[in-house]
């Protein structure tokens, strides 16, 4: 898929070949666009490769109801999207949406969570399903839950999938439908003359296009000002522990622990502000493991086979930015930290907006001017 000539042109260029850029690209191909996807190279920070894989609804949007709305909209669109990926590529991304639990280890934590979800429920005029469970009720889902679990919040719309298979399925579908995937290093310049964007990469390859979508994760911070946009995103590190494969015993995902279709147990949910450092630390891994063992003492003898750190792409308020440039029409900014959960929304309604100028005014809250006004 490497482009050998120096100059290339297509309707649309998407900068960023992670799960956000790919989902948008698939939606644009579906709308008949011809799409070139610029995926940096293996030096990229590659947040999509470190993902935990939750399709998560509960708790999203406690201070911004519209975020809860698009999250649930995406959750509802997920099943047909996953079926489509499977039918087209033969890859089953292991999507399961039969509900999820957030386990709490203290009464205070459980009460704060219940209060937060009640607030979202009220903002949604009671159309927001969740319930608060005590330990006995948690054990109906997980007989293995430990005595230190005080309870959990349950949401029937939560789920999970395998994020690496998701990335691979989207890449295969993109190529199958004629998308061009290029690895020519970072984009170093992005300019618009009349209606034509000119993109130059590190390898001195030049691309021309009528529309450009910035989906480069943390790279958007540097790219956005080139087309009059603002992407104040910062890295936030999460560390994930990965176990040997064991027979399936966790039949629902939780906010901290989930089991993949292959039997691997993934344990995570740390949050650290450490710049662009993608490493792991013994201290944080020990903390993650200790919390997980309180939730499920059965994990005591589970062997861990690897761990990684990955950088979330966080805006100051944690919510996405979806915006077209005013000074450079045809340039769009798309950034979020829930690329899995919002995947079906990105592939569907959001890509339709970019393809057809079909902007839902309700998405105005995702404009980056909220950080400067």
């Amino acid at each position: 898929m490497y482009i050998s000539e120096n100059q290339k042109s297509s309707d649309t260029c998407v900068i960023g070949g992670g799960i956000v850029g790919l989902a948008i690209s698939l939606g644009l191909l579906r709308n008949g666009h011809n799409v070139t996807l610029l995926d940096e190279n293996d030096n990229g920070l590659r947040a999509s490769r470190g993902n935990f894989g939750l399709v998560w609804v509960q708790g999203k949007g406690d201070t911004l109801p519209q975020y809860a709305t698009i999250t649930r909209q995406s959750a509802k669109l997920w099943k047909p999207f996953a079926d489509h990926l499977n039918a087209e590529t033969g890859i089953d991304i292991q999507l399961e949406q039969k509900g999820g639990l957030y386990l709490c280890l203290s009464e205070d934590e459980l009460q704060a969570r219940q209060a937060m979800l009640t607030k979202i429920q009220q903002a949604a005029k009671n159309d927001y399903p969740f319930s608060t469970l005590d330990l006995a009720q948690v054990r109906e889902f997980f007989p293995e839950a430990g005595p230190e679990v005080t309870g959990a919040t349950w949401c029937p719309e939560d789920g999970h999938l395998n994020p690496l298979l998701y990335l691979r399925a989207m890449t295969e579908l993109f190529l199958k439908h004629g998308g061009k995937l290029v690895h020519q290093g970072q984009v170093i310049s992005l300019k618009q003359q009349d209606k034509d964007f000119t993109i130059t990469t590190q390898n001195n390859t030049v691309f021309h296009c009528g529309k450009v979508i910035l989906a480069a994760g943390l790279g958007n911070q540097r790219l956005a000002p080139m087309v009059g946009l603002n992407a104040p995103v910062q890295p936030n590190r999460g560390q994930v522990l990965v176990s040997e494969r064991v027979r399936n015993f966790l039949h629902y995902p939780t906010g901290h622990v989930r089991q993949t279709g292959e039997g691997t147990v993934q344990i995570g949910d740390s949050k650290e502000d450490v710049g662009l450092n993608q490493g792991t630390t013994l201290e944080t891994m020990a903390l993650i493991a200790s919390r997980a063992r309180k939730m499920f003492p059965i994990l005591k003898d589970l062997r861990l086979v690897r761990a990684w750190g990955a950088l979330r792409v966080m805006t100051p308020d944690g919510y996405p930015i979806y915006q077209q440039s005013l000074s450079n029409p045809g340039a769009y900014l798309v950034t979020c930290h829930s690329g899995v959960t919002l995947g079906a929304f990105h592939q569907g309604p959001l890509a339709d907006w970019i393809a057809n100028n079909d902007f839902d005014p309700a998405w105005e809250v995702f404009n980056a001017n909220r950080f400067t006004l």
Partner: protein
Amino acid sequence: MPTDSHFNRQAIRESSPIPVTINGQTIMVQPNDSVAAAILLSGIEMNRRTPISGKKRAPYCMMGVCFDCLVQINGKENIQACMTKVEANMDIRTQNGARLIHHDLNPS
């Protein structure tokens, strides 16, 4: 020891062989052998079946990274054969699919 192994032992300064069993069959091995080496020398064609497709697997990297040589040893599942030294009378068995985590914790 069966004679149909695809592997031959290099000349070494031999010690007194010790017995281990692989799926119940006793074989004699050198005390410094890894379990994976013992399996390859024994001539058995696989040490595990994979969790998803049930395909056969044999020791591959011999240095602890590929996890293809998983076996049951003395009742414990998912042990890396290449990282484990043989012991006299060790009970080595084929690992069938994923480990059952409950087994080790609540023996009954």
